[in-house]
């Protein structure tokens, strides 16, 4: 029978299947960070259990760590204790850790692919919803809770409920200035924050195939914002070229054997998806959010929508509530929305290509008066590479802050936060109330829009700069 890629990868990992029970799936790679793991390790200790496969586990410090002044001890004692707890847990249980200051430290979803640990056909889990990022390689990658983190540590498996499959096909070609971020924001606006619930999404079509590996990660990263369990893209030559030569990639004959297998993972001709969504890349333009969930987005050329235009009473109420929180008035052109902060970074858009794109736009220009721009590389390797390419200097010359690696203002857990009433254009993934700091207001944007907005001070595309 013709099968989808997700079904193939799932089948390859079934350890046990029994009537009336969820399938028990084997986990190839478990990524660990400081925030969702302490209670899991404590659970192991209390039960006298060990980590079954420390050699399939890797940890880093990202959510909670400061991105300035690496050498100083973490000022917040509660944050410090959490980071120290991870260090002790990794040491006690024999788990490899990349701590602050290490060249391989960074946002967990940037670190895995960079090391070549994320490969096609694998099952990847992490106590973080953006684990869907790794699906860009044709891996089946799920975000999990702390109880499941403990379960994977103890057994290297997870009992998983069956899923449904959804194809999101993006035909055509992206116009200049339009990026992977705009694709995924448009997908979420189309299907809604609950549209993907219960589904593993496979992104396909010529616009997806044309994307670089890093851009594919941006798309898969935000699958969770559409409510999906995971997002995947079929591995192809772009994928193989990206993996080859990385520290943990197979070498020589093993690489060739792996590629042969990876090619077999593609969805079979004639395989049926439970749902299908189609978009035309030619029609996409830079996308921005106006509300407090990632589905509340419009093209940058559009205006803040009128809640009265929603037929569904629940959507209307949500829009009214969002506009009140965001302090926006219906009918205001999105381009007139003024920001005081620009955040470039996160597991969505903190990789080297994102920094290159933004630096190219900002080169020789200045961040607008009254605007603070924070550039936070996704990992210390990304930072090193950016510095080698002179990008760090471009940001500094423009008046931006060039920080150390971490999740930073994406979730406002470390000191990088918006103050009440502040407004950001952010390349991150969530515009929830207070997400970037209590009372802060977030507009989700692409790196292109972030850079142009930093220069103009209002939500802008690079084309607006050229017009000046």
């Amino acid at each position, binding site marked *: 029978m013709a099968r989808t890629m997700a079904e193939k990868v799932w089948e390859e990992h079934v350890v046990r299947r029994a009537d009336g029970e969820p399938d028990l799936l084997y986990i190839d790679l478990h990524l660990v960070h400081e925030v969702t793991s302490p*209670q899991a390790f404590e659970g192991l200790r209390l039960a006298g259990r060990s980590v079954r496969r420390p050699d399939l586990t890797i940890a880093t410090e990202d959510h909670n760590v400061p991105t300035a002044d690496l050498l100083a001890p973490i000022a917040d004692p509660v944050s410090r204790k959490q980071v120290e707890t991870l260090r002790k847990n990794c040491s006690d249980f024999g788990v490899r850790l990349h701590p602050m200051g290490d060249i391989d430290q960074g946002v967990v979803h940037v670190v895995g692919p960079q090391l070549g640990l994320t490969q096609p056909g694998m099952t990847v889990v992490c*106590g973080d919803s953006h684990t869907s990022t790794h699906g860009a390689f044709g891996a089946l990658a799920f975000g999990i809770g702390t109880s499941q983190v403990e379960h994977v540590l103890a057994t290297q498996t997870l009992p998983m409920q069956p899923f449904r499959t959804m194809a999101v096909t993006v035909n055509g070609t992206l116009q200049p200035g339009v990026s992977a971020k705009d694709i995924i924001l448009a997908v979420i606006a189309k299907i809604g924050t609950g549209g993907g619930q219960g589904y593993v999404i496979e992104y396909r079509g010529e616009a997806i195939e044309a994307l670089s590996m890093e851009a594919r990660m941006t798309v898969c990263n935000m699958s969770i914002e559409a409510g999906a369990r995971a997002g995947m893209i079929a591995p192809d030559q772009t994928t193989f070229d990206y993996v080859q030569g990385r520290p943990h990639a197979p070498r020589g004959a093993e690489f060739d054997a792996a590629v042969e297998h990876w090619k077999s993972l593609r969805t079979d001709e004639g395989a049926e998806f439970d749902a299908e969504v189609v978009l035309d890349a030619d029609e996409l333009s830079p996308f921005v959010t106006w509300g407090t969930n990632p589905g509340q987005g419009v093209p940058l050329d559009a205006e803040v929508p009128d809640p009265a235009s929603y037929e569904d009473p629940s959507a209307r109420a949500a829009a009214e509530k969002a506009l009140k929180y965001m302090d926006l008035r219906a009918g205001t052109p999105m381009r007139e929305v003024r920001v005081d902060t620009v955040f470039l970074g996160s597991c969505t858009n903190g990789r080297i290509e994102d920094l290159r794109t933004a630096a190219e736009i900002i080169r020789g220009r200045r961040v607008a008066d009254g605007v603070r721009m924070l550039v936070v590389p996704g990992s210390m390797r990304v930072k090193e590479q950016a510095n080698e390419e002179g990008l760090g200097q471009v940001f500094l010359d423009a008046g931006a802050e060039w920080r150390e690696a971490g999740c930073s203002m994406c979730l406002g857990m470390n000191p990088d936060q918006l103050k009440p009433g502040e407004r950001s254009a952010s390349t991150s993934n969530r515009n929830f109330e207070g997400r970037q700091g209590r009372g802060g207001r977030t507009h989700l944007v692409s790196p292109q829009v972030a850079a142009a907005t930093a220069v103009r001070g209002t939500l802008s595309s690079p084309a607006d700069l050229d017009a000046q």
Partner: protein
Amino acid sequence: MEKFDVHTGRAVPLRASNVDTDQIIPAVYLKRVSRNGFEDGLFAEWRKSDPDFVLNRPEYEGASVLVAGPDFGTGSSREHAVWALQNYGFKTVLSSRFADIFRGNSLKGGLLTVLLPQEVIDRIWDAVEADPATEVTVDLVNREVRAPGVQESFELDDYTRWRLLEGLDDIALTLRHTDEIGAFETTREPWKPVTL
């Protein structure tokens, strides 16, 4: 894990859709390394900034059933959202749609999340708002929710129901199959990466 069979308690009507886990518990409350004490973070911002927020109203004090709008628990995978609800005193959450990861976390941790049609949620909201002393019963044995004027069955797979009724720990159940896990491991492709 505490067993769940039948629970009866007063209910809180949370008339909002898309209540994400950043609202259930903001990130700044996730720094603790323990599994309890998260009740202060539950809906922290709404409790602080809105005196009319439903949990600030005295008539709902001590309620143990949360009746929420659609798409409850979207966003982050933080299980702290489940712990915060439990630490605060909630035993069960009713909604017409839950985000997947939140739902998974809740059922692992013994917080019973119950899927009901929105029309039934609306009726429970109306009943509870008309009389906050209204009691709602969530009966896992018969897979049924009961409130004045409401008797509605709900779906939950047999395996999860059994695990909750018995209060069983998933890890212990899986460890019964260690031999099968070991056998599977011998079949893994040699090119798959290791971290050590």
